[in-house]
């Protein structure tokens, strides 16, 4: 935890309210996000119990699996989920704009510009917490290898249509969420804690109710009290007043309310199956419907508070103006969405269960690059974030107290002005260290030539001064200017090109070979995990 975050947490404890650690919103928020509040059942990993899902905060769609172990009911749930998610995705996939991309021409090997489509906007999926991200991945994994009867008439347990496609999209979103700074799939607790520091631990911040209690406590209570109530307060029946955001449910709810309700449902179903005549069947069907309705009401009662909390959190975030670079990162999200859309359209197989060596290395390289880019961009977008970097000695702001014109040696002398800056910050700048400042959105670099007592640094400006002998106007700081330099680079270099997977070298096991269809689970053969 950085020093400035520690300070903000102290202040939060002291004042009883979460403290802002950002002055702008560092993540893109779609005008019409799809919110997904899932619940799972204890006992089987990733067995959905139900969900609220939709884009309209007043009219969520409630999906329920009255017997979570029943695979047919689970498929029904997933099919219903696909009916909500896929039309939302398709609506975005259709609206495109023209864009250019640099590609390697397969024949000449040269880098050429090609005209391609870029989706004008991308669908954004919001889950309440980090555990929700994992569930999205798990649902993706357990559905993308399924085969529908249409794809494979011989499949022993055919999946309803659309389910494999839903799995591929959820997988893509789950993977994209691992890219730092991406916004296709967001966990609300992560986004809120990026912008506010509370007086509780970061582990406790993963409780959406407690986090919101710190950020926006009810009138007359402190954040600490409200957070404690959100975590612990129970009604007369011992049920939490603020149900956990899930996907896991509270054990008291499971034991006292859910388990008996599911048992009644099971009994009603067994009774219906055993009905011997139509009159009895009618009665028993009514009993089954009532039992199912009871479970639906229970699931609704545990998801609706979270659903409302998610929208409230989004409201709070929307009050912050969006950071300038967040849009650029969103454009990369749109590219990611468009890329997957094209792969689906091209009939490519689902994402493999495990990445091959080259894909894994490429993903890691991308994420490290994005992480460095995100850290730099957030600091450039937000003086409060920059203040944290300054406090850590990774940047400094100060006043220009002298500028001396100087030139490089060589045949064509170029301007290399010496700029003296006085700062109250304590940058950890070694001699000859490179430093950078933003000049009209582009990084200008300088090197540290000397340091004197009293926070005085002499810098030699190295670039962005034009081609002539004299620097272009405005490209060199002037005496009296307030400027801010960073010790970190603003832009990231592209990594080296890795070999194609078919050319994986001997050190990494050689080429991965042809993909084979995934085998069903050894214990429950109706699952393909």
């Amino acid at each position, binding site marked *: 935890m950085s020093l400035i975050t520690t300070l903000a947490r102290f202040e939060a404890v002291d004042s009883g309210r979460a403290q802002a650690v950002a002055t702008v919103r560092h993540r893109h928020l779609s005008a019409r996000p799809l919110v997904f509040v899932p619940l799972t059942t204890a006992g089987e990993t990733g067995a959905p119990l139900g969900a609220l899902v939709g884009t309209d905060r007043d009219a969520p769609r409630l999906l329920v699996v009255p017997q979570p172990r029943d695979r047919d009911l689970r498929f029904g749930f997933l099919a219903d989920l696909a009916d909500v998610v896929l039309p939302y995705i398709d609506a975005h996939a259709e609206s495109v704009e023209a864009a250019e991309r640099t590609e390697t021409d397969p024949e000449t090997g040269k880098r050429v510009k090609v005209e391609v489509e870029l989706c004008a906007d991308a669908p954004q999926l919001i889950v309440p917490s980090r555990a929700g991200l994992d569930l999205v991945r798990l649902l993706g994994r357990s559905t993308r290898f399924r085969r529908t009867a249409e794809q494979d008439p011989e499949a022993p347990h055919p999946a309803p249509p659309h389910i494999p496609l839903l799995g591929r999209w959820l997988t893509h979103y789950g993977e994209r969420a*691992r890219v*730092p700074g991406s916004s296709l799939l967001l966990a609300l607790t992560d986004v809120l804690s990026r912008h506010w520091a509370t007086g509780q631990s970061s582990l406790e911040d993963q409780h959406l109710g407690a986090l919101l209690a710190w950020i926006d406590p009810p009138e007359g209570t402190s954040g600490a009290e409200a957070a404690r109530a959100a975590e612990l307060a129970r009604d007369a029946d011992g049920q939490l007043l603020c149900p956990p955001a899930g996907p896991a449910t509270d054990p008291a709810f499971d034991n006292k309310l859910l388990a008996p309700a599911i048992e009644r449902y099971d009994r009603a179903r067994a009774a219906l199956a055993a009905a011997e005549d139509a009159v009895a069947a009618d009665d028993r069907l009514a009993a089954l419907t009532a039992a199912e309705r009871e479970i639906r009401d229970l699931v609704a009662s545990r998801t609706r508070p979270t659903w409302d909390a998610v929208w409230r959190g989004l409201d709070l975030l929307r009050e912050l103006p969006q950071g300038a670079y967040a849009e650029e990162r969103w454009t990369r999200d749109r590219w990611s969405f468009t890329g997957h859309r094209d792969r689906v359209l091209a009939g490519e197989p689902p994402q493999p269960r*495990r*990445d*091959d*060596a*080259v894909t*894994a*290395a490429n*993903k*890691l*390289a991308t*994420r*490290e690059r994005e*992480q*460095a880019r995100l850290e730099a961009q957030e600091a450039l977008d937000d003086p409060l974030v920059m203040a944290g970097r300054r406090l*850590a*000695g990774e940047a400094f702001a100060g006043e220009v107290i002298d500028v001396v014109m100087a030139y490089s040696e060589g045949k064509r002398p170029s301007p290399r002005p010496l700029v003296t800056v006085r700062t109250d910050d304590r940058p*950890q700048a070694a001699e*000859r260290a490179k430093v950078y400042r933003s000049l009209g959105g582009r990084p200008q670099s300088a090197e540290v030539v000397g340091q004197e007592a009293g926070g005085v640094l002499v810098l030699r400006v190295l670039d962005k001064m034009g081609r002539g002998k004299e620097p272009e106007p405005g490209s060199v700081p002037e005496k009296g200017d307030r400027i801010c330099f960073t010790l970190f680079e603003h832009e990231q270099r592209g*990594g*080296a*090109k*890795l*070999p194609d997977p078919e*050319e*994986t*070298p*001997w*050190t*990494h*096991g*050689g080429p991965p070979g042809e993909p084979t269809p995934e085998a069903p689970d050894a214990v429950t053969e109706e699952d393909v995990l």
Partner: protein
Amino acid sequence: MSPAHPAPAVGFDPGAAAARATDAILRDTLHGTERGVVVDSPPGAGKSTLVVRAALELADAGRPLMVVAQTNAQVDDLVLRLAEKNPELPVGRLHSSDADAYDPALDELPRVRTSAKAADLRELPVVLSTAAKWAHVTVDEPWPHAIVDEAYQMRSDSLLAVAGLFERALFVGDPGQLDPFAIVGSDQWAGLSYDPSASAVSTLLAHNPALPQHRLPVSWRLPASAAPLVSDAFYPYTPFRSGTDHGERRLAFAVPSDGSGPDRVIDEAAHSGWGLLELPARHTPRTDPEAVRAVAAVVRRLLDRGGAATSERSPDPSPLTPDRVAVGTAHRDQAAAVRAALAELGAAGVTVDTANRLQGREYDVTVVLHPLSGRPDATAFHLETGRLCVLASRHRHACIVVCRAGVGDLLDDYPSTEPVQLGTLVKFPDGWEANHAVLAHLAEHRVVWHP
């Protein structure tokens, strides 16, 4: 399992043992049939010497060779050593197109050619560069041979980027030093044989388990007082010995002790090879001002007291100058704080750096700010075996550790709790155990000081 102990000193000839190991390595490298040879080298065991010798022998045998090191400083150092051993050998230094991409001293060497383009150097018998630069090189015809230096500090993905450039390779490195790391989570690939964030050697051996593996048995750097501890604590299953015996190295000071904590710990370390300057227990910020000042005071006194180091290198004692002293820390801000404190005391020229940057370096005396000093918790970062190993194995004569009391209790409060990942190789010893081993040894050389 109890760690194997090195054979008793009687009849052990370190020079002969090292020569036998080197011969076997060169035999496998020059005449073996496998595509790779792996060499484990404990601290100061002559890894660079081995790399230079193997490079020269491959060049003599007429086999074009590329050398992959991890940092520009390492590459420059190897080029200088090659030129020193064989000034006639044409050597290529492939470098990036940045300004100051390589040590200007290379320009003085007549047979060394530098270029940012691999094609310019292709005809030379030996070409050296960093892994990062090699990753941008494409060739039609791979090099018949490569040497990968510091292979345990190289990440699997960076080996993936360069492995297509050579047919066979000698991988040399120190398994006890810091593992490579990624700045983003990589749990997703944990347990895969080609986990891109794992070390190059673990991927290589997972896919090619039959490759010959050697190790260098003698540390020429570590004194007889340090080798057994470092070997037991960090290399329990691959023990090594020091090349020198007790009494062969001596550290003496012209100015007698003034009785202060720093002077007493200096005397203890000069006498026994180790010293622990223990400050009162306290939870502190990372840049603990008291501990930082204590480190600076020890360094100041080391320089002021006219130290002289006697070793097997020369019959006369050599003065303990600032360039023979280093300070090691866990974090960069700690290093910056120590640098500032040293500047205040007017002690210039002493290297102050983090464990990551001290890897591969060697000094007469090191002063270490213990990674766990003053901490309220012990995270995986601070417990990492390699971090402590690097800090405790940079010295030829003595190592002084500055630490707050109570680290033993802290360790007991925070046993390793890293999740166990299926399919990954569990590393022994873990940082917790290694920290305890070092701490127990340091306790015998403790000087308690209330500044």
